[in-house]
């Protein structure tokens, strides 16, 4: 499989892997921060409701 | 204000001189290499010296609270900032021009080019001070010099590129396009800098 691309296989595979991993890191970080913020928001709004009740 | 800027002079002088010498030394004296990078040596040393003295123009006064007085008085903030920048330029860049012959000897540039080099740096250096104050007004409330340096450097690219190109090609005609562009760049930064700096200072008070 590594021999698939001939002489330049290292470059192609490494560049694809690097860029896809960067994109995946970005996607996961975005999703994770969104999940964290939504959880914190729910928590805050519940505690605010409790305090105001 | 002018008396306080005595420290500008010493800092700027020492840094400019040392950076130029470092540039010259780093090529181990090989003549061809030094010929190639000598103009960039001058400009980069100038840029770094300007960068290091930037935070003294307005940050101290923001910390003191003196900028409140500027805003309260009737005198337009733009003119105050413009004058400050001119004083910064006079105290930081003009001495460079005075010791330029020595720098040229250190970097082994032909002394015949002295006049041309002086004019080029004369035209190009106000842009550095004016862009510098524009960007340092953006970061007033945070006094870290790392921040100011990092943020200002991308804005110096046009001046740096044009200045080095002009110093590299000093054997062109006087009215060549490169010189005109350098002058235009300086005029552009001088024009927009007071207004944007004043706007940025007011932003910190809203």
């Amino acid at each position: 499989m590594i021999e698939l691309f001939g002489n330049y296989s290292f470059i192609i595979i490494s560049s694809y892997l690097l860029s896809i991993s960067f994109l995946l890191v970005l996607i996961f970080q975005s999703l994770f921060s969104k999940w964290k913020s939504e959880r914190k928001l729910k928590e805050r709004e519940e505690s605010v409701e409790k305090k105001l009740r | 204000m002018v008396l306080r800027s005595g420290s500008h002079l010493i800092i700027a002088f020492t840094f400019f001189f040392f950076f130029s010498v470092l540039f010259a030394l780093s090529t181990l004296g090989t003549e061809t290499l030094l010929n190639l990078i000598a103009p960039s040596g001058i400009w980069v040393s100038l840029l770094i010296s300007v960068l290091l003295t930037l935070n003294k123009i307005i940050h101290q006064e923001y910390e003191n609270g003196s900028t409140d007085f500027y805003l309260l008085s009737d005198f337009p903030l733009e003119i105050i900032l413009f004058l400050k920048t001119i004083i910064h330029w006079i105290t930081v860049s003009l001495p460079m021009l005075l010791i330029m012959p020595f720098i040229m000897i250190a970097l082994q540039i032909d002394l015949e080019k002295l006049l041309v080099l002086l004019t080029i740096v004369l035209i190009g250096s106000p842009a550095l001070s004016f862009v510098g104050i524009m960007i340092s007004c953006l970061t007033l409330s945070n006094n870290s010099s790392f921040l100011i340096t990092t943020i200002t450097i991308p804005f110096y690219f046009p001046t740096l590129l044009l200045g080095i190109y002009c110093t590299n090609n000093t054997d062109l005609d006087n009215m060549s396009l490169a010189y005109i562009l350098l002058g235009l760049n300086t005029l552009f930064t001088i024009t927009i800098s007071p207004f944007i700096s004043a706007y940025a200072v007011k932003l910190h008070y809203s």
Partner: protein
Amino acid sequence: MSPKLIDTFWEFSNPTKFKRLAKYIIPMSAGIAVICIFVGLIWGLFYTEPDYKQMETVKIIFLHVPAAFIAINTYLMMTIASLIWLIRRHYISLLAAKAAAPIGFMMTIITIITGSLWGSSTWGTFWVWDPRLTSFAILLCFYLGYMVLWSSLNKLETASNVTSLFCILGSIFALLSRYIVFFIDQGLHQGPTLSLDEEKNIDNSYYFPLILSLVGFSALSIYLLFIRTITEINNHRISLTEKRVGKDD
């Protein structure tokens, strides 16, 4: 017709309406992104013939060109969003600009890395200071500066105004630098530019996967933008509730 269209656009400056729009757009763009990127990249990578001039490395184009496209467009979007914040004070556009910065930053890094890896085999060097590459380095500096500014200033009001101003000034100076480098370099020699690719792309076998990949990357960036903007809106609302009630015990 045109005033109505613009009015509906301004409606999305309301956070709830924005979230409703986002509920639509997120799954749709995620789906488009996954499909297009998968199909485009795998088609381009495995099922096209190697170009005789550049052998196989031209396949990097399927990553490089879309990433460059997104990098520049994200910066344009950030400039426009900052202008909208400074003029009309819709804070959604400010949060969108803040959210878009890491996306553009990553895309610029991908462009530079894939470009230099590609260039190392075809042109022999990893980097040349010709107009396109220099303008990407400048773009990288401006993205970094923007993100550093956001994290360094404390008061939200000042931070938002200052970063918007920085973004707008940055675009002016980036354009200026690009034309100056163009002026400098053009005077010496035609550096290796990406225009070489235009001639090759007329070849159908590369054209279609490239378009797919381009659409896929755009959909991906829209998806990421919406997700990150929602995160920013939530964080903003959290800080507002903290101010109202005080921090939790």
